[in-house]
């Protein structure tokens, strides 16, 4: 019986229709009679990979130096000088890429994309500042980070940001971190890098929109200390939490606090916390009830966040080019939009089937469902945790920097009379020797 075989052949024929021809062969170039020699194509080599390791080395050295300057020497001028060096080196000289902030995404992509792995240098960029923070607080932010440095350098006339506003704005950074990690994990885009406001200055070139954003942030940064670090930086979010646990950290006074109040306004980043005073009894009762309520609220917020994130998967997925393309192709195929765009033209020219695209996009959408749920839960957890931490009474007897918010810039040292005492002792000691 011939028929079934024919059907199979017909089916096979139908299957290959629409698949663009592959395996192109090259046709020989002309044979020249003259002694013309075909030039070879020049493809300039990339800069040597060695720089990466130099960068990693410089990072390590500057971190050590920063630690010493901040925690032992306690000299703002030297810290500032180191900061300027890092700005010049990592920023203007090395063009600010890859920086530890962006490296978060590279690490995320490494975990989720089997075909991607990061070079050692990027890994060092990601991990070293974290380790240093875990030991010594945010010394990276204080003196090494070029993004921090450029903002620190423009801070001319600091104004106080009310604490309530600061608490609210800080949430943006958490959201940004969550989104950055999610989109990196999905292989959609490195949003943190695409929307880096300062890298354009380092390169003296960039998309004008981001240059304007950077300029605006710097303008704001002349009055509000380090706005990107405090309210946007996704890496800062991680550093904040690690810094809470740090073994050693910045203290305003080298010895004991004498409660002189002089350092109160010293910090342009609002990181100095005053000693606490006992609450009225009534407040305790209210606080206890509030705490209980918030403890119950926390899981609710996590759950609600997870649910909302899952429900938002279709919106989140639109960041992925594949999903956007699928959407566009669907609209075009069903005559819901007029005309074509470059992306849909390219899709058709490349001969992929739309079903395949839809399947891929749907799969991505589902992955965004999981990712979105995790992101939502994370945001819920952050907000719940934030509310909890704002409802707990902390005990402080001295003026001290909040370990999470302190950017280790060393500005406050000279406000402390004890520090002056120490310096004087040091000078005398020097003379004695």
């Amino acid at each position: 019986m011939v028929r079934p075989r024919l059907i199979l052949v017909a089916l096979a024929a139908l299957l290959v229709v629409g698949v663009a021809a592959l395996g192109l062969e090259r046709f020989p170039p002309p044979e020249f009679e003259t002694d013309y020699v075909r030039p070879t194509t020049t493809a300039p080599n990339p800069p040597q990979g060695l720089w990466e390791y130099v960068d990693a080395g410089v990072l390590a050295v500057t971190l050590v130096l920063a630690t010493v300057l901040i925690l032992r020497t306690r000299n703002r001028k030297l810290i500032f000088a180191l900061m300027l060096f890092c700005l010049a080196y990592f920023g203007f000289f090395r063009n600010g890429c890859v920086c530890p902030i962006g490296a978060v995404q590279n690490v995320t992509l490494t975990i989720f994309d089997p075909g991607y792995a990061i070079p050692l240098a990027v890994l060092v960029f990601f991990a070293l500042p974290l380790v240093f923070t875990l030991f010594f607080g945010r010394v990276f932010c204080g003196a090494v980070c070029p993004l921090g440095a450029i903002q620190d350098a423009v801070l001319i006339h600091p104004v106080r940001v009310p604490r309530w506003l600061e608490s609210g704005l800080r949430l943006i950074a958490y959201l940004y971190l969550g989104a950055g990690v999610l989109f990196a994990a999905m292989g959609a885009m490195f949003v943190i890098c695409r929307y880096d406001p300062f890298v354009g200055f380092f390169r003296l070139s960039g998309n004008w929109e981001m240059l304007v954003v950077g300029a605006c942030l710097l303008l704001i940064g002349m009055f509000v200390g380090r706005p990107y670090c405090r309210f946007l930086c996704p890496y800062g979010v991680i550093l904040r939490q690690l810094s809470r646990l740090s073994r050693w950290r910045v203290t305003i006074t080298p010895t004991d606090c004498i409660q002189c109040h002089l350092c109160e306004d010293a910090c342009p980043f609002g990181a100095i916390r005053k000693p606490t005073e006992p609450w009225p009894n009534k407040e305790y009762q209210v606080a206890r009830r509030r705490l209980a309520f918030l403890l119950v609220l926390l899981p609710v917020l996590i759950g609600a966040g997870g649910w909302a994130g899952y429900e938002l998967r279709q919106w989140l997925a639109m960041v992925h080019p594949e999903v956007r393309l699928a959407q566009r192709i669907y609209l075009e195929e069903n005559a819901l939009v007029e005309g074509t765009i470059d992306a849909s033209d390219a899709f058709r020219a490349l001969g992929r089937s739309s079903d395949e695209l839809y399947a891929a996009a749907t799969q991505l959408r589902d992955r965004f469902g999981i990712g979105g749920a995790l992101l939502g839960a994370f945001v819920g957890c952050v907000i719940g945790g934030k509310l909890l931490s704002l409802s707990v009474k902390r005990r402080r007897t001295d003026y001290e920097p909040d370990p999470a918010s302190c950017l280790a810039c060393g500005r406050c040292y000279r406000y402390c009379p004890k520090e002056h005492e120490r310096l004087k002792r040091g000078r005398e000691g020097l003379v004695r020797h």
Partner: protein
Amino acid sequence: MPQRNDDVTRRRLLRDGLWGACLAGIGGVAGFAAHKGQKVDWLWQIDPYKCIACGNCATHCVLEESAVKCTHVYGICGYCEICFGFFDPEPLAINEGAENQMCPTGAIERKFVEEPYYEYSISKSLCNGCGKCVKGCNAFGNGSLFLQVQHDRCVNCNQCAIAAACPSQAFRRVPADQPYLLKSVDHV
């Protein structure tokens, strides 16, 4: 107050535990990433078989003058007298006059080799990566002209702005030891 002391110790223990966990976490992530093989750096490059020469390369690069430029693989070139990468689709005459050239920046040089062959080469300093010649060469010629990221210019952004804006998703990360995706010349 023994009670308070207890409290303090417990808190310290918790803190130390957390501290250790964080350190271990960083170590774990770093270890995982480090053990994934692939120790070379990544660079951005265009897959010439996916590129549709839409022109985004010319304007979306973070550099004022795009890092993407036309590349010519001579081994594929037919050395045509009438090159559709060089000449306007409706040339007034077959000569190098500006009115007959396709390239808006005049970046293609046409040089007589021998009857009837002409050599075409790209002046990289003039090319802005618009891809107009690529279209012409693909459609009519052998496709010896195509766009490539030039790594002497590329600043290797962690997220290439052109890649994000590429309509055909032709950009991809390539290992730094194979920085170009040149069309192959099987016969050479």
